[in-house]
Every structure is written in C-alpha cells, then in structure tokens.
C-alpha cells in the first residue's frame, strides 16, 4: 500500500536558530531539524546510530552534525555516518512556505 505523507508544522522559519538543532517530538518519533548557514532546512532522526545520542544538540558544520556524545560525524543531507565510523540515520523531507517550516513524515 502506498504510504501517505503527513505534513507537520514545526514553526516559523525565522525563529529557527542557524547552525543549531531543534528537537521536534511527534508521538514516539524524535526529529532533529537544522537550519544550515546556507539557509537550507534539513531534518534527520534525533538518534545517533552509535548509542542513540541526541543529534539536535550536536555541533553543526556545513552539511554535517557532530554527535554530542562521542563525536561521530553525520550528514544531515543523506543521514550517512562519515568514515571511519559506519551507519545511517533516517532523513525526512522538509518544506518551507511563507516562513512556515514543515516536516513530511511517512505514515
């Protein structure tokens, strides 16, 4: 069956801090939303594949976030963990319209 996408309002684009993460809680799911210095908004699962570190509190550099727990480097674009560590986190599509930031979550 085709999965439907749910559009979730995260907040105002202008309120999102640049190069910092925001934790978004949707039922059991936690998503880390980042506004990069390029202005793009990216969203990944808020759970490091290493030991579940909260990525929203990590340090953001370009298109990567460094996990605050043990410093794994993870792409906020495709969710890939960078070498020499391995793994991947789920990514979510985002949409910005009229200063509103939305997350698209599969249901």
């Amino acid at each position: 069956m085709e999965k439907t996408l749910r559009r979730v309002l995260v907040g105002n684009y202008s309120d999102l801090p640049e190069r910092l993460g925001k934790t978004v809680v949707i039922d059991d799911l936690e998503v880390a939303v980042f506004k990069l210095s390029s202005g793009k908004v990216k969203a990944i699962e808020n759970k490091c594949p290493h030991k579940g570190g909260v990525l929203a509190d990590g340090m953001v550099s370009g298109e990567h976030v460094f996990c605050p727990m043990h410093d794994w480097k993870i792409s906020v674009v495709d969710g890939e963990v960078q070498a020499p560590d391995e793994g991947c986190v789920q990514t979510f599509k985002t949409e910005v319209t009229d200063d509103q930031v939305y997350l698209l979550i599969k249901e």
Partner: protein
Amino acid sequence: MPKQKLILIGNGMAGIRAIEEILKLKPNDFDITVFGSEPYPNYNRIQLSKVLQGDTDVSDITLNEWQWYEDNNIRLYPGETVMKIDKQKQIVYTDKDREEAYDQLIIATGSNPFMLPLPGADKEGVTAFRDIKDCEKMIDYSKKHKRAAVIGGGLLGLEAARGLLNLGMDVDVIHLSDFLMERQLDRAAGELLQKELEAQGMNFLLEKQTAEITGKKHVTGLKFNDGGKIAADLVVMAVGIKPNIALAKENGIEVNRGIVVNDFMETDVPNIYAVGECAEHRQMVYGLVAPLYEQGQALAKRICGVDAEQGYQGSVLSTQLKVSGVDVFSTGKINEDKSSKAIKVFDEWRGTYKKLIVDEGKLAGAVLFGDTKDGNRLLSFIKKGANVEEYLDAGQSEESGVDLVAGMPDDEIICGCNGVSKGTIVDAIKNDSLTTVEQVKGCTNASRSCGTCKSLVSDLLEYTLGDDYADNQEESICGCTTLTKDEVIAEIKDKGLTHTREVMNVLGWKTEEGCSKCKPALNYYMGMLNPIEYEDEKESRFVNERMHANIQKDGTYSVVPRMYGGVTNSKDLRKIADVADKYEVGMIKLTGGQRIDLLGIQKQDLPSIWADLDMPSGSAYAKGLRTVKTCVGANFCRFGTQDSVGMGIDLEKKFEGLNTPHKIKMSVSACPRNCAEGGVKDVGVIGLDGVWEIHVAGNGGTHLRKADLLCKVKTSEELMEIVGAYLQYYRETANYLERTSAWVERVGIDHVKEVVVDDKKKRDELNERMDLALSAVQEPWGEAIKNETLLKELYEKVNVPTASK
C-alpha cells in the same frame, strides 16, 4: 562459471580476516557461508581487556557489523557450532542439524582457555577470560562481590586483574613463577612491573600453586599447596590457551599441537585450510593477532590462485601489556644464554629498563620497561635480522625510523589491532592528502585501538610526504588546516579577525565550516585574545558548554549549582531539595568536587530549575574553573594553620566563569596533611604557619600527575597575584584542550617560574590581562533565563500534537 562454495568454521578474527583478503582478490568468485559458535558478529577480542577496564563498551568492539555480512552476500550462522566434517563428501554438519556442502573449507576455530583441572573448578564464580560472555560475567560479579583472585600472572591475567580493580574489586594475583610475565619478560623487568602494579593496588602471591577451589555451590576461596589459603568470590583462570583442534582431530585431519598446515595454510586434506590460533605452522602455534593477518593473506592468495609462490614464512612476535600507566614491550629472545650477549640499560631514577639480546652479532630480542617508544623499531630490526651495530649506529635519529618504514613491503601490517598495512596507509596519505597522525587514524583506523603504532604512522607520513611533513611537525589544529595554533593566533591578531568563519575563510580552511575540533578551539582563542569585544559563538561550543549543563547518555542533563569552597547552608539545601521534588530529578548526588549534582533533568526544564534555584552555575561542564575544594581549616581543625575555607571561597569567587583552555580545579588545605588533595589539582594551595605553598599542574584524572611546587608566599594578596598570573599565562600559551599538567610538562616548570614568579613586570602585565578577561564574565544561568531568544533557541522542544485521524 558457477561460484565455488566456501565455508568458514569460526567467526573470529583470523577467519574473517582471511575472508576479507579473499574478497579483496576475488569479490565474486565465492559463495560464502560462515559458522560461529558465538552469537555475535566478528569482534575485536583484543579489546576485551579494554572493555573490562572500562575504556570501551562491548558494542564498540565489533569489527564487522551484521550489515557487512549482508553487503558481501555472506550467509552467517551465529550461535551455531560445526560438529562434524565429512572430508570425502565435502560436507559439514552443525549442532542445529544443518548440512552444508563445500568446495573449499577454512577452519579457524581459535583456542580454548586452559582451565586447570583443580578440585572445585566447576563451582559457580570460576571463569576464564576469553570472550564477551566471560567479560560480562566478570562485570556482573563485580557489582555484587568484592574479592577476586586471578590465577596466572601473564599478559591475560594481569589485564584481567587491572580490569577487576577498575571495577572496584580487591584483586589477588596468584602466580607460579617468582616473577611476573616470565614468558615475555626477564626478571628485572618482571620485578619492575610488579612494583608498578602493586602501586596500582594489585596484590601478588608469587611462587604459589593452587591446590583447590573451595566453597559449596559457589566459590569462597583458594587453597594452596603450601597450606595457605585466601578468600575469593570470583576466580579468573588465566593460565594459558590451547588450540581448539578437537573438530579437526576427530575428523582425521592431521594435528600436532595445532592443526598442521604448510606455507599456504593447507592441511593434509585437500581443500581444507586452517588459519589463526588453531593452526600450527613450522612447529609454531601463535597466540597473537599479528601472525593471523599474514596467514590470512597467504591463504587468500592460495584459494584465489594468485601469485602465491612464497606463502607464509612465520612471524616474529612482540608483546605489549594493555594496562594504563604501564609500558612494557618485548620481542624475540628475552633471556641471554651461553651463545648470546646482552646490552642492558637500567635507569632506576626514571624507572626505565632496556635490554637487547645479541646473538652472533645480530639483534635477537629486546625487553623494554617504562619507555617503549623504541619497540617498533627494534621489532623491525629483528625481523630484518640486522646487525646490532646497524641499530646502535642509527641511534635515535629521525631518519632511522623513516628508513625503517621505507624498507617494509607494502603488505606489512603497521597497526596490529586493526590490521592496517603500510600500503593502505601510504595510499590514504597520498589520495586524501593527509598530513597528520590524527588524520590517518580518522581515515584508516590505524592507531585507533591501542595506539602503539603511532610512531610508525608518523614515520610513514614523513616517508611519504618528505619535507612537507617535516614542516608539519608541529601538529596543525585539526585536519581542516595545516596551520598550527601559534600560526593561527598570529594571523588572528595580525589581520584582526573577528569570528570563526572569517578565520576559516581567510586562512584557507579545507572545509567550509570547520569541524568539532577547530570550531571550539578557534572560539576559545578569539575570546582569549579579545575578551571584551569578541562575541562568544554558542554554535561553536560543545553541547555542555552551550547548554550550561552536562548532557547524559539518554539526552537528559544534570545541574550542579555553585557551593563556594564546598560550604553550603540550610537555605540552599532546602532550595535544592524543593527543586529535586518539583522536577522529579533522577538522582541527587554528591560530586567528587564537594557539591551537589541533580541528574536526569529534561532539557526543557533547565531554565525553570535555574530560576527556582537562584544560585550561580557551578560550571561543572566548563572549560573553566570547576571547583575549589577546601579542608576544614584553622577555624575548626586542631591542626589548621590558615583559613583554608575563606581562601578557597575567595579564589572561587574571583576566577569563576573564566574561560580556560581546559578545565581547572583548585584546592586549599590548611596544613601539610593536605586533606583537600592539592597534589592532584591544577592549583593546590597548602597553608602552613605564616606561609602559603602554591602547587600547580597536578592532575587526578586520566594522566595522573603530582603537582609541582611553584612558590611560597606570605600573604593572601600575593597568593591571588601569583595564581592570577599563572592562570593567565596558561590561558595565553596552552593549546586548547591541554590541561595545566600537560602544558607544564611541555613548557617546563622552571620556565613558568621565570615568567610568573621571578619577573614582577611580566606578572603584573599578566594580571592586567586577567582582570580584563574577568571583567567580561557573566553568570550564565542568570543570563539564560533573562534571554527570550536563547530560551527559545536552545531549550525549547517542538511538541507536535498527535494527528487526528
């Protein structure tokens, strides 16, 4: 061509390594099946010692994740043991009644720990130290029991003993010989080792033979042949290993001590190979990983039918003990005999010992204690069969290390723990333009585990990069730049740079926005250089310093309010108690720094807790002043000579909130009994009658260091002046994340004395700059709760209401 069916028995380090080598040569030629008795993917057995010692976690030592097997189309049967091999029909049978046919079969069943057949050896609480299960059992026991006995004072036994000590147990080590590690060390080194380990808290019973393990169902102790006995709740047997050859033997494959193989790792049965600890090659059975990488290569070449004229030629081994604070190394022959001569250097003052064995003019072995830097070099000289003059002439000079790595073949293993070869490292240096050991570690994993191959990696960098590397000797800040800290600081001053991204842009950083190493470092240097105008970048701070709280493993935080000098009052205690109730904190704990920690707090509750507490932040997260511990002092204690509490509070109030390269801990005691532990503090003040002694650069953490006496002063004004200048000099010249202990080791205590104590003018200038920096300090919790934007940006979570269907 249909794929050949390849079966591996034993999902351990040797077997999987051989498979990796095969996949490198012929990724598509084999249909691979792996059986392993242990229910895990292949893990790094060596690291079990580190797991037990608490330096790493079981989940961190996996070498090949489940995904790796999938990605390579390998069928893995974890937790399944091969029981029988039909060598005629070429079929294996397992304990789960599976039959699987093979074209090629690799046996890599490793070793079994040797369990002494003592009366009582079957009681609960007796364990070996071989696999994850044993490791977990010991950790489990340490939570409920206190006394451990380790039988065997060899490598494994001592690593187990150190782990059990770290787990909080009292440890007796029972050893048959009259000195430790007698198979790897000579008496002199063995005795030095014993002294060092005794200082770490191990207790040794030498020349003792265990006769019986006592207890009913569960062990309660040991009895010895000489009638003596000790109590124990846990007994670890670490007396040796024996190759696991039962399967081969029962199925008619030739065995001796191990499964007998030729230079191509072939057994006497066609299409059956053996590799690793279960294999015996030229009468040698190895118990370390270095040989199994070489064996794996030889085996892979043979199975894949490529360039295998030479095969495996045997290995020269070296050993190293993985116990922190102890450096021992040995290789080759360790004891002199009639035909050999020894060169010995024993430096009792530094506690180092070095012995080289020379056989007919050639280096044949070495034992090092205390300083093992030369180990790798010695090992290669011995492997080459070099004349001893060659080694002595080469001396300690830089070139010799480079010559040495230049002479190594590409497939020589540099990092034994992770099996990284010279070729892999050199390729990575060239292809990814690497310039530092850190970068090589990041890209290839070499030196990531035990770190003993660091000097070789550095030699390889020099060998590959030539003069470019020599220029880089001073480590750059991180992989994003080739500039050193001093160069960057000079440029920041010179060009008047004002924020981190500007530094990166102007100075040609290789990455657009830096990494988790350079961002916080630059942020610190800029704040130090320009305390008034520089605007601290919260996004360049590590999580704890950004949030002003300590993050916990589950993403909650902890809160430690200030308690100046460790002194509190009923009002503050009541506030803490009220907050603890109101926010249902997970735990209230006294810290090692004389204050109270509230743990398990939700991120979004932090600001309101700070508001309720209305106390300053204890900065338990900061690269800055943490605590000033004090003793009771002259006002109460019968031995006290000075007001240590008052002095401690003054120091804490003066320097709180300051940013420093790494954290700073201080203490003030009021007599030489030193109850506030000034010997292990960044600044440890000891009050004597009419005098304050200022000790500096002590460290009680990872790299234990006893403080040096900086000077003695008479008045509290002088004390503040010296401490202020000392800290400012540290702020200005240390590398980011360098504790005072490492900094003083680097620049020398005499140099620090010259600047801070002997030179009044410099001292005054330093204090001026310190006062400027202190004038810019703001109390972070008070700041945060007033700042709406900050509250919103950092502490709020977005809660999305449940979707209405």
